């Protein structure tokens, strides 16, 4: 069940700092464009900065270096957010986790922060610890009443399943906007978009990613997880799977192609970012939502929508 006390604390601002994510920028431009389009409809400005870099997660996720090696990158990004004077909005579970977790770590370890700030000083920057980083799921859940007003093309008859991703709900068990094992926030948004919620047994399990698994263990660790998940998803004949993390999206979208390519199984369930689904319900052009960049084709989904709207 959604946590009302967290929802109430979501700051509803006129503008946010949009923290771009490497995966969405390089693989799924639609995640960014749909976010921009949807927030424009809601009358909320999004500002970003060309100065921003990778959140810093890659170093830790891949176990390439010690955890603290990410700190200067995280602190630099946070200092850019601080400079904007706005609350930040992340589109990726990993970015959210890194910025929030490491920010918290630095706020409670002044010695380390001083060291990090020495390094940032060379770039003429300083980490102060004054920013607030929001996850996209928190933001859209907090804005649901305003989203309701913007729905022009309810997605009638569309069968939609969900996948939340581990790093937000599990990583922030006590502070996240929903319960990690029985979340319902996304389902509520799907209701608002006018689509039909469908559930599958493996809805709340991991996509099989975890960068370590993908890079180091690849086949034997990662693929069985993915297959179990996709098999379960296929049975319920969903029209789309909704995610809130570009990395989960990569695994679930491209994973289907991989399975098919290797002759393991055919799935064909398009994977959409939450804002892409909301965008469709707001009548935004699918091209603007970047749906064409998806590896698992969305054609059938769009045809079904067109048919039901006609």
């Amino acid at each position: 069940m959604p946590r009302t006390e967290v929802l109430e604390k979501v700051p509803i601002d006129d503008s946010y700092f949009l923290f771009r994510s490497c995966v969405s920028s390089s693989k799924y431009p639609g995640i960014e464009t749909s976010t921009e389009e949807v927030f424009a409809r809601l009358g909320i400005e999004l500002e970003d900065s060309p100065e921003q870099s990778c959140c810093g997660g890659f170093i830790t996720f891949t176990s390439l270096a010690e955890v603290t090696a990410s700190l200067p990158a995280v602190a630099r990004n946070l200092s850019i957010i601080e400079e904007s004077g706005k609350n930040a909005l992340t589109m990726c579970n990993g970015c959210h986790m890194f910025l929030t977790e490491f920010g918290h770590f630095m706020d409670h370890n002044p010695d380390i922060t001083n060291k990090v700030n020495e390094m940032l000083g060379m770039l003429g920057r300083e980490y102060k610890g004054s920013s607030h980083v929001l996850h996209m799921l928190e933001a859209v859940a907090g804005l649901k009443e305003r989203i309701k007003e913007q729905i022009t093309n309810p997605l009638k008859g569309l069968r939609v399943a969900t996948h939340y991703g581990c790093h937000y709900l599990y990583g922030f068990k006590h502070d996240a906007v929903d319960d990690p094992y029985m979340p319902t926030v996304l389902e509520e948004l799907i209701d608002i978009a006018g689509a039909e919620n469908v559930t599958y047994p493996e809805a709340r399990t991991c996509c099989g990613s975890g960068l370590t698994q993908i890079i180091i263990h690849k086949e034997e660790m990662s693929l069985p997880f993915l297959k179990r998940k996709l098999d379960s998803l296929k049975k319920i004949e969903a029209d789309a799977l909704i995610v809130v993390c570009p990395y989960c999206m990569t695994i679930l979208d491209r994973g289907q192609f991989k399975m098919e390519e290797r002759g393991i199984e055919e799935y064909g369930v398009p994977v959409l970012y939450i804002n892409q689904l909301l965008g469709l319900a707001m009548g935004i052009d699918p091209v603007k939502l970047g749906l064409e960049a998806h590896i698992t084709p969305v054609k059938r989904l769009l045809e079904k929508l067109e048919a039901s709207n006609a």
Partner: protein
Amino acid sequence: MRKIGVFVCHCGTNISSMVDIDRVIDSANRLPDVACAIDYQFTCSAPGQTQIRDTIKKYDLDGVVIAACSPRMHEPTFRKTLRDAGLNPYMMEMANIREHTSWVALSRDEATAKAIDLVRMKVAKVARLRPLEEIHLPVTRRALVIGGGVAGIGAALDIADGGVDVILVERSPSLGGHMAQYDKTFPTLDCASCILTPKMVEVASHPNIKLLTYSEVEKVTGFVGAYSVKVRKRARSVNLEKCNGCGTCLEVCPVSVPSEFDASLAERSAIYRPFPQAVPAAPAIDRESCIYFRTGKCRACEKVCPADAVDYAQEDETVEVQVGAIVVATGFHFFDARKYTEYGYGSYKDVISWLQFERLTNASGPTGGKLRRPSDGKEPKSIVFIHCVGSRDPSKGFPYCSRICCMATAKHAVITRSKIPDARIYSFYIDIRAAGKGYEEFVRRAIEKEDVQFIKGRPSRIVQRDDKLLVRSEDAFLGRQIEVEADMVILTNGAAAQNDAAELAQMLGIGYDQYGFFSELHPKLRPVETNRAGIFLAGMCQGPKDIPESVAQASASAAKVLGILSRDQIAREPVIAEVDRGRCTGCMDCMEVCFFTAVEEDEFMGRKVAKVLQGVCQGCGACVAQCSSGAMELCAFSDEQIHAEITALFAVEVTE
């Protein structure tokens, strides 16, 4: 000038290994009020006490400082020694040079310096002590037992058999508690109700026991030997005198609500008897679900009652009873397994709680004792038990072990095997804790003879696929992930304190821990007493324990109650607050802050003044701190005595 004797104890080497005893003696000997300072290996031993007595006589001492362990340990011992030597027992202070000094110090020099300081402070205090006399109070020969589960029943019967009147207050409509819901007891597989219901009947028919069911204790005032207790008898809407327990009304009631007794697996009517063997057999009307009380229409039960016992006009009634001692046996409630959302309790129908399993296997349960899945009524062929749901898990706020669940699960597994011989039974555990007579053997039986697969691992989640439940877990011995396909999963929820335990503890004025379990006075030596004299504990309300332990505690409490009530008078420590009526302005701030309601208004020379009730005051000192005019003082802890201690602490040691 006082003649004070200082006795320094070595406590074997507990003290002497860290404290230089000779230097302590030497320093004490130089203090002006000290007549003699001597040491001994074990001051608390018989020869040690003889030494004190002889020294008191030899030097004609009028005050004693004993530098040894904590006063919690041996203050009563040495008070008695003083009395035997003809000295007022309250002319003694203990300097704690063990727990507060030798056991915690890092260097011998520091420990010795602290011991010297403590002795000097206590000498300064003893020089200002005055003799106090113990308070003697009359005793009301009647006891109150709160809670009618197996512990409360045991305590009430033991006290009543000792010839003392007992009032037993139970919140629900019937005696029995959780044990009445169980199917069998471990490790003998005795039928739970077969051994409990005769006891319930015995309570109801005992000439010395007055049973108040559907009642709650609202207020407790007074003190050991003379408690005054307000009990609210909730309106049962059925006249207990007239009702013959025929049960006709239960059949005509049109209402169906989830049955608490059957753990929501079955339904009951609005006029209900929790279970067939309930004592008393008379039903009660649950006014929240009764159609008549909600809409003013129906009265079906009244129409059919042959004894004319249904009485809608009944109202709550408050009675005040006088008792000399109280046994608290309010039990526990099961941890709410919905907090483990990963197991889906509450969402998946076939994930059930331990209590629901008990009802499913019980012959008087909703399935007549046949083990069936709640979802489709089919016989489960693969059954998974999960231990420690709400136990040993700091992340859920329950880091303690609930003690009974390992055995309960072994029992459930064995019962399952007898009901479904070809079932696959799995039990996921963290550790098996089977410390008890015949317990380990019973678990071995489950593993070796009953073919129950015990898997060391804590399941990470349960996923429903079609009509199966997939339990995913690590297998700590194999070191890899496993998945078990189950038809039914039983969560062995831990034991938690009653939701309103803290409120009850505050009303009774007894201590409780961070989990809501009531605190015993001493974990080893006073396991059933509380910090309030005359109030005792029995059963789960003090902490998780099994039935034999609960019953043993009940008997222990009963023995304590009989001990108090066998006397005409009881003596109390005179360490209580005292009013200087010349200084008291009658503002009564002290009455406001008194937790024990020990202060009342009095009149002195035409003025309003405060008065401390000797028997009620517990000597906590709240009123002393509150009093703006300095009229309140605590005997043996007066301002003068404490100032003297502080002054002595900072005094420079006199050197020759």
